[in-house]
């Protein structure tokens, strides 16, 4: 576990298209979000709607190093609603997700992106 958490995060804002299959609904729900940071293990996402910890989602990251979105299945580990007042009121959800399933090709693309961002890498938030 400690080994996983030692992976560097990259502070970057990329578009992350989320797909969630809600219990009791036969239609998957799609919504757009964006990253605050990303690592090989997970990501911190800003979403336009609330989502409960424990939810499973599929996330297609629009990485600038990849023409095709990188699709990763993830579990919501924590979630907190945030309200920001600038010139208008904005409410959104700050979400931490852990990647649980990634195809080899997607993993390679994510690694390629992470390698291109070494200048924006920071240590894991783990204490």
């Amino acid at each position: 576990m400690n080994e996983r958490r030692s992976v560097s995060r990259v502070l970057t804002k990329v578009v992350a298209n989320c797909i969630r299959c809600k219990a009791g609904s036969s239609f998957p729900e799609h919504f757009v979000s964006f990253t605050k940071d990303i690592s090989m293990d997970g990501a911190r996402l800003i979403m336009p709607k609330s989502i409960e910890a424990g939810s499973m989602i599929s996330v297609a990251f629009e990485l600038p190093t990849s023409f095709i979105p990188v699709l990763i299945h993830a579990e919501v580990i924590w979630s907190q609603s945030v309200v920001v007042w600038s010139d208008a009121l904005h409410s959104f959800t700050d979400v931490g997700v852990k990647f649980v399933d990634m195809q080899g090709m997607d993993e390679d693309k994510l690694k390629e992106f992470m390698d291109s961002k070494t200048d924006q890498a920071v240590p894991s938030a783990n204490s």
Partner: protein
Amino acid sequence: MNPQKTILIIDDDARMRDLLKRQLKSENFVVWESSDGESALRLLGQRKKVHLILLDILMPLASGLDIFDQIKKAFPDIPIIVTSVYSREEQEFLVWDADGYYYKSESLRVLMQEIERVFKAEYSVSKRGGGG
């Protein structure tokens, strides 16, 4: 009608740039273009006057969302209209501090209206600010 304002197009799609360039030139704008954010930042760094930026938020090399933040930080006085294949509502969520939004499925007339709206807003702010 336009007093030769300069607009910088940042978009990796050459056909889109060409389409926008032709439309903007026909409206008497001076047009600069960049195919990625890095070269756009270099261009802006040359300190030549740019009155408006049209920024595609999905581009190669660097995230358009990151580029938006970098431009806003380095050149806060230049208004930015964000363009993408995402709906206006989605774009407003992704980049809530943009000055305008253009959904690429909309007609160019919508874009021209958005440009006009942004310039009017800028003019009214500068007038209220009394800077000059």
